[in-house]
């Protein structure tokens, strides 16, 4: 009986319609590539391969965006009623040297808003390249686990894990991932998301 109920539960889970919103910057949008090659679309592909029958992905990535625009963009997507919201913002804040306190405050507002929606939240961690200096890098990297702990939300420790700084996995600009790089990112994100479905 127990086994039957477990199978029933799994089948229900696999057949349920899940809506995942990715809110991010150029890394999410798929800068320089077809949007179908960006990691949100690859995550969908991975989920479908795993047997999830109905997954809707909303790619809310906007190149160049910072955490400042996060809250207003969230409101635009509220009517789409996402089940999971993946926040992948902050890289541009860091690259532009925005004070970490400001970035942290913006992300906090977004998470608070999402908590009020009763939506599952995944926060993607970012790291700055070494040229930004140890002090700023450490302060910046600390934002994400701190917020994840504070709000008890899921965390992708580093979105570009295994991709950042690897020439083969990035476009010629050395910043944005290529198609291969996005597949690696998708796996990193998928490993956290699939537990929430």
């Amino acid at each position: 009986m127990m086994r039957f109920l477990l199978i029933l539960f799994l089948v229900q889970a696999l057949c349920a319609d899940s809506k995942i919103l990715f809110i991010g910057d150029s890394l999410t949008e798929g800068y320089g590539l077809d949007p179908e090659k960006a990691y949100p679309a690859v995550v969908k592909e991975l989920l479908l391969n795993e047997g999830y029958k109905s997954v809707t992905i909303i790619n809310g990535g906007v190149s160049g965006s910072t955490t400042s625009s996060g809250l207003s963009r969230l409101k635009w997507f509220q009517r789409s009623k996402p089940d999971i919201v993946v926040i992948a913002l902050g890289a541009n804040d860091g690259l532009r040297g925005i004070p970490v306190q400001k970035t942290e405050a913006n992300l906090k507002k977004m998470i608070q808003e999402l908590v009020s929606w009763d939506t599952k939240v995944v926060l993607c961690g970012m790291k700055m390249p070494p040229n930004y200096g140890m002090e700023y890098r450490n302060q910046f990297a600390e934002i994400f686990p701190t917020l994840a702990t504070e709000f008890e939300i899921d965390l992708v420790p580093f979105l570009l894990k295994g991709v950042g700084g690897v020439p083969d996995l990035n476009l010629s600009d050395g910043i944005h991932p290529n198609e291969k790089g996005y597949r690696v990112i998708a796996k990193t994100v998928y490993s956290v998301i699939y537990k929430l479905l």
Partner: protein
Amino acid sequence: MRLSFLYACRLIKQSRKLYFIAILNIALGLLGLFVLQNFKFSIQDSVQSRVLSLMGSHLSVSSRSIIPEDELSAVEALLPEFDKRFSQSFYTMMQGPKGLRLVQVIAQEEGYPFFGGLELRSGVLYPSNARLLKQEEALLSPELQIQLGVQVGDEFEIGEGVYKVRDFIEKDLGQSFSAFSLAPKVYITVQNIEATELIQTGSIVSKSYHYKFSQELSTSKIKQLQKKILSPGIRLSTPDRNGDQISRLLNYLNDFLGLSSLMAFTLVCIGLHYYYKSQADRWYSEAALLKYLGIKKSQIFFAFFFFMALVGGGGTLLTMLLGMLLSPFIQILIVPYLGADFQLNFYWKTPLIVVFIAVIGNVSLSIPVIYPILKSRTAAVFNAKIASSRVKMLSFCYIPFTAFMFAMAVGLSNSFLLGALFIGLVIGVLIITTLSAILFLYLGAFISNRAGGSAKLSMRYLTHYKASTITMVSSLALSVGLMILIPGIQKSIELEIMGEDVSNRSSFFLFDIQEEEVQALEDFCELHSFGLATVLPMVRSRILKINSNDFNRSINSGFTREEEFRQRFRNRVVNLSYGSQIPEGDKVTEGKWFEDRYNWETEEWAEISIETRYAKRLGIELGDRVEFEVLGMPVKAEVTSIRQVNWTRFNPNFFLILQPGTLEMAPKTWLASSSHFSEKEQIRFQELLFERFPTISVVNVDQIAERVFGIIQQMSSALIGMSVMSLLVAFIVLGTLIYQKVLMRRNDLGLLKILGMTEKRVTLLIVMECIAIAFLSCIVGGISGLGLVSIFSIQLLSNSIFPITSAYWIIPSIVVPFSGWIAYFVIKKLQHHKDFYRQVF
């Protein structure tokens, strides 16, 4: 041949004074061309040196990733002998007494940049005139003094390295508007970059190799070099490929200088043609006599040809002489008006070009004069009056001259279209002025029957010598037309580039203003009395479909670099804006601007306005339907207007603007431009804004705009100089025309004197004739000139407003009295000549 040459010399000997006047006319006219050409070359050099200053080298190979040794070697193998330097740059955080700030660190090898450099606050130009940086020294952008509170001599850290502020940068000659940086710069030596310990695996660092050659690379060589670069992300830059705004502007103005040279030359040709034509009467009988004496036609032809060559050659030689002698004085007179950056040089190619133009121009101009003379009849030997009435200028004889002028026009304006248009318009104006002169003669005949005294006699002479009057009016009217055209176009270019009020330009561009910050920013500006000029919403979107056809395509690995770039462009996110008002300075070229708000409940398609060149690039036309995706939501729009945007106005603008009511709900950021601030206000604004809105990006466009406008104003002064030169040429031609006219009339004047007319009355008669001709020419030429200004300015330069300048009324009000004065001066001078009234019979 010898006989022909000797005959030509005899013709000159017979009328030495006339010859001298003719060569003086050519010389003064060509001197204008000489100076204008030298101007043009100096400006070309100035443009070139500015482009090199911006670029810093003749060639640079740069990349954010590793530049493979073999690719670099392959490139270097194709290069001529070179000087090479290395530089690296990266962004990092710099700690100062007032906090932490993003900076761009630029580490350069000693001796770079090869061209341009940094003007330091201490007044020296680095690296050419300053002591080289010591290992621990750094040069800083001035913003850092305000934002971080660092001073000269202070120590600061970049990574693990400790540096000392040696000086602040007053002006970065390598900074163009198109390449503004998002962070202030810190210059250090490349040898000391390791000390920062910031360049590690994963660091984003741009590396560049810079090359200097004895001469610039050809386009084909650059293409060859490009083929040697196989790794993606490696960028090859040359000055030609540097799409800098300043260079484009200077080239633009340079082409106008070419056109002005052409106008000056056209004026010379008018004078010369009139002179040759006035000589044709005498030559007709001379040719008939030679024929009668059994001289061959070819010998007669060469005799006159040599005569004209001697006139042209003499004039050209005199031009060279005057050009060389006057060059230092012209330099002293003109350069102070052009600013310290501009150097008016002497170029040896200038006299060569002037000689070439003078010879070919003279030869082609001689054909319509010599050809009818060769057709002279023996009867002309005995009757000069019959002879003069038979001199007909056949229009087909003008074909070589027209072809020559066309080639000149294309060459000097650097444009086939502009050259063709210029020649077409000159011919058009000539036809209009000729027709007007004919009409005037009919009216003149009518008036002469009713007027009395000198006016009647003047009018009678004008109507009697129809051909002469028509030629005089059309020549003078064309001269006036060109005189009006030059300042008209100059004003038009000023309007196009600078707008009507330069003092209204912005000091700062502000980006990434969030929706909730707009009101706060407006309040902040009001509180501190900072003006905000423009605040525009910006919505990111992606074009999905154009006329129901999918727009996005994937980038295949087989794409060439250019195809990949184009594809990236097509896939790129597009920025949309919306608003009810057309941006200032924009002009709707097709369709109409939005009249009402979009209602999504009742309308499916919103209206959209697209910038002309953007529409062309995407193949979008009026009435086409474009579908966008704004963060997952569809937005459909129909193109209802195509708009010309004045991008040189230093105001934020958008390629795509939607009807109000379409995007108000969409997530957006705002961008703004500030008013023009004084230097003190700029510092205060930056300090307060950075404190209150740290996430708003600010670009100080004032310094860059200052440079661009400075150059434009400098060029504008050059254009004024050019216009004055052309006007001087025009007045010289005007004087020559009148002089020739008076000389032609000497027989009539002698007769009048014999019949008892006083010298005073004779003078009055000539002055009235010339004033009448000048008056008519000013009316016809003035209207034609304004028409030309309108065609060049509104149609060609796409200016939205007709350029108005005081030159339009100043020129005619100078030409008419000047014509009277010159006639008075010439007649008085001739009256003093003892033979003047003797040549009646």
